[in-house]
């Protein structure tokens, strides 16, 4: 029993990595080389937050940090800062997760949105303090808004298709694992 759940844990971690890889792949496709004043949602952040709130063991901090560091390097962001902020955001959500567990979706969405706003603002503030040239404010805000809006969709897909749901008292399966 324990071995099976260990196997499942590692499978889900691998699945998380491959989902993020697929998202990076999609964004790197050379489809649109013309700048169009639109910034789509940062799906990877929404995915990480949704999974961390449901099954933190599927998205451990080290994994999140590595994935976002690679994303930073590939997407020409200042390397490390965004990854650190996402890891901090995940941890902040994790500490709030027990309180949110029984409250339904709306409070969870609000706290995820608050965390996203916080890391977006911190990102801009740190870059501003260190005089790093940054993206236009409008585009950043648009990306933040789209990410908050897309969060319920990511949650729905994660729980309905990938089976990443909150632990209920009846789920004995996931409790045997401690890594």
């Amino acid at each position, binding site marked *: 029993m324990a071995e099976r759940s260990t196997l499942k844990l590692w499978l889900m971690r691998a699945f998380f990595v491959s989902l993020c890889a697929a998202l990076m792949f999609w964004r790197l496709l050379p489809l649109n*080389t013309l700048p169009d004043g639109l910034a789509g949602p940062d799906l990877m952040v929404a995915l990480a937050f949704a999974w961390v709130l449901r099954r933190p063991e599927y998205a451990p901090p080290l994994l999140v*940090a590595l994935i976002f560091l690679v994303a930073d390097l*590939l997407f*020409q962001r200042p390397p*490390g800062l965004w990854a650190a902020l996402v*890891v901090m955001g995940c941890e902040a959500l994790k500490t709030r997760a*027990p309180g949110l567990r029984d409250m339904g979706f709306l409070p969870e969405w609000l706290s995820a949105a608050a965390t996203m706003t916080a890391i977006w603002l911190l990102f801009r503030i740190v870059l501003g303090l260190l005089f790093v040239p940054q993206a236009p404010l409008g585009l950043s805000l648009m*990306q933040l808004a789209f990410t908050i809006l897309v969060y319920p969709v990511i949650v729905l897909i994660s729980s309905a298709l990938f089976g990443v749901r909150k632990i209920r008292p009846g789920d004995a399966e996931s409790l045997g694992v401690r890594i």
Partner: protein
Amino acid sequence: MARDRAQGNEYKGPLRRLLLGILIVCLLGVFLLWRVDSPRVERFRAQVVDRVVPNFDWAMAPVTGTINIARDFQSYQRIYQQNQELRRELQQMKAWKEAALQLEQENARLLDLNNVRLDPRLTYVTGVVMADSGSPFRQSVIVNIGLRDGIVDGWAAMDGLGLVGRISGVGENTSRVILLTDTSSRIPVTIQPSGQRALIVGDNTSAPPIDFLEDKAQVRPGDRVITSGDGGIFPAGLLAGQVALDPGGRFRLRLAADYERLEFLRVLREYGRPGIDTPGSLIAPPEGTPAPAQSGSRPATVTGEATNG
């Protein structure tokens, strides 16, 4: 009960918190290192891109191809309009073709008169666009040529017609081209026919503004914009596009390169120009020769420097 135990182990372990702190400090350390010593980290980034992106390539080409086919299929719905437009354009093109033929003959004659030797070192390497920047805030593409092909940072990239961008970040097999539309792109240009110098300042729009113009009255929409070669950044005379006037009264550059379909890019090889280090010898006459008479006749020593006027 079970939940409490999970929480207790998961969130209150001091060791775990310590490790988490170390992780975050490491990430911020990478960021600070990048801020302090950017070129080294950027070189590392180029190596990471070089390692990662070619792995995606087997899937990227077919997916991009499929999506482009789907887009082309959508455009068949407008085929009648397109046909009309194409006919109209063909008419205009015929007129231009006549003009071009005449100009070509004239140019050939003038070149012959001048006995101009075009720079034989201005050759190019052509690469295929593999990926874009993946971010709405940065405008760049990754091409599949790199150190292996002798690419050097700073070379110009063009499509068949116009300037596209500048090499910045070279890996073994890939290199990144910062497009003219990127916010960090600054290219010195000359506006023809008035000869005004200006800078093309990328601002994340599809028509970058033309800045630092000396005299705006001499520039008109439709004027050609070519690189000036100032600062040794690019070879002079590469076509960048045409001047356009935006509703706010600001001059912008309508790019000559087809940014909607960047597929193949030529990277021009340029090995720099010889610098001029000794200011005196150019101005002063060589010692021992008498100063030229004040009659106004030019010395005959400048005939070797024919320009391609």
